[in-house]
């Protein structure tokens, strides 16, 4: 079967993510949430997307994943055009959403929540013993191994955020999208994530897009910083 030009392009490892003049509207809105965005991210890029609240950072991530359909323009994720072929691309991505908090009665345990990260990339979602080993490994990496059997809803905000990060990491993603990943973490955990875990992922070739409303924050080894305001990219620093 002939590959689409963009797919052939990706096989030459040009871009992990590519947006071409993308505008996304929320249903019923006349003003776009993001407008005319053209961006490219290579394999192994660590990009910070920064800007005030409501500037379109989360919309940008959700458009990249195909959760929101762009009204104009084209989005390619790992060579797949999204949202048309999003399901294939998403299986190779990890996503930490901004609104991760669950109420106290949430009836899934920590290890179950992390294992869910593997469900979509295994046949019928069934996990092997090796899969469970990698669940425990990633819990260990984030220092929450002892929480494995606790109900997710009974954890603090910071602990819940670490569990959701573990869920994204256990997938061994080629593209990792982190939406405000430090919002509930203490200073020590922030430093560990930004100075050790993320650089290691980037070194292994994972493309990391990190959204933060804190305009003063800049992780080490950041290859690109994108400033957004009112749905447009106002500045890109390489």
């Amino acid at each position, binding site marked *: 079967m002939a590959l689409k030009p963009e797919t052939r392009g990706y096989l030459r490892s040009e871009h992990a993510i590519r947006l071409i003049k993308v505008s996304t509207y929320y249903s019923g809105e006349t003003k776009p949430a993001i407008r005319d965005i053209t961006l490219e991210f290579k394999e192994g890029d660590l990009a910070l997307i920064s800007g005030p609240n409501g500037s379109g950072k989360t919309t940008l991530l959700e458009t990249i994943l195909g959760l929101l359909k762009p009204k104009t323009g084209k989005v390619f994720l790992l060579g797949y055009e999204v949202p048309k072929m999003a399901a294939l691309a998403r299986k190779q991505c990890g996503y930490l959403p901004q609104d991760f908090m669950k109420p106290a009665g*949430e009836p899934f345990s920590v290890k179950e*929540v992390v294992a869910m990260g593997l469900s*979509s990339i295994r046949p019928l*979602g*069934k996990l092997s013993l090796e899969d469970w080993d990698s669940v425990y490994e990633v819990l260990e990496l984030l220092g929450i191994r002892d929480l494995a059997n606790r109900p997710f809803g*009974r954890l603090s905000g910071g602990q819940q955020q670490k569990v959701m990060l573990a869920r994204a990491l256990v997938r061994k993603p080629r593209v990792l999208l982190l939406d405000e990943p430090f919002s509930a973490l203490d200073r020590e955990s922030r430093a560990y994530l930004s100075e050790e875990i993320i650089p290691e992922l980037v070194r292994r070739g994972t493309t990391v897009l990190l959204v933060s409303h804190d305009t003063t924050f800049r992780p080490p080894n950041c290859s690109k910083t994108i400033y957004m305001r009112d749905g447009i990219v106002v500045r890109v620093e390489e």
Partner: protein
Amino acid sequence: MSLLPLILTATIAGALAGSLCGCTGVTCDRLGLRTVAFAVAHGALAGAALSFLLEVNSLVLGIAFALLTALLLGPLADAFEIPIDLVSMTLFSLYNALTFIFLILSPGIVLAAEKVSQVLWGSVLAVTPEYLIILLTLAFLYALFLITFWHRIAPILFDRRLAEAEGINVRAYTYALIAMTGLVVVFTLRITGGFLVFSLIYIPASSSLQLSENMKRIVLLSALLGMISAIAGVYMSFLLDLPVGSSIVICATVILVLASIAGYFRKRSIIRSVS
């Protein structure tokens, strides 16, 4: 004539219907599809009422209306970008209106007819061997569906958006669960009646949520409590000569009260052990 075979088949049917409804209640609750059962059940009522007007088989039209509703709810909500609960409640109201219009226009004093009361309030007399086979098949299919796809369904029950972001076909699984809900409602309302079927769906689910914080246990407990409610209700109906649907709801409510008391003490003991 001995009542024993009738009681036995009614008990088995009640147990199957109760466990099916219990499972369905938990998945509907977690998916935010609480009103789907209302729309589907009242779709069946409207279908049955139309059958009285047209003087055709009430079961066939009831099933057709209910299944059509279950299959259309998800795509309708997605196509018009309206919350599914709103679509459900609109259809629920429409079906109520249609039911009364069809019944009023039907020949004879239909509201007093036995078959109408069966549809509205349920009856153990509706439990035939064929009906038992249908319920058994449905229970088997539902269990098979949940066991086979649990690892895909669980992430959706936890967080639909995140499951979608991770590449799970959330829409397909949700539609399948709605269709399953439709089938469960259609085939259970012969026992409980269209007005009370959702009680058997939601009350055991609420009870199980009081007793556990483990999703798999909640689903199993809900099925078990639904089964116990239905069996107890069938016996209560026979012993006190009461409508079976009402008896089941009373039993399910008593279990909910007991579960809430047990849940209160369970939560207090957890707080004490933490502090």
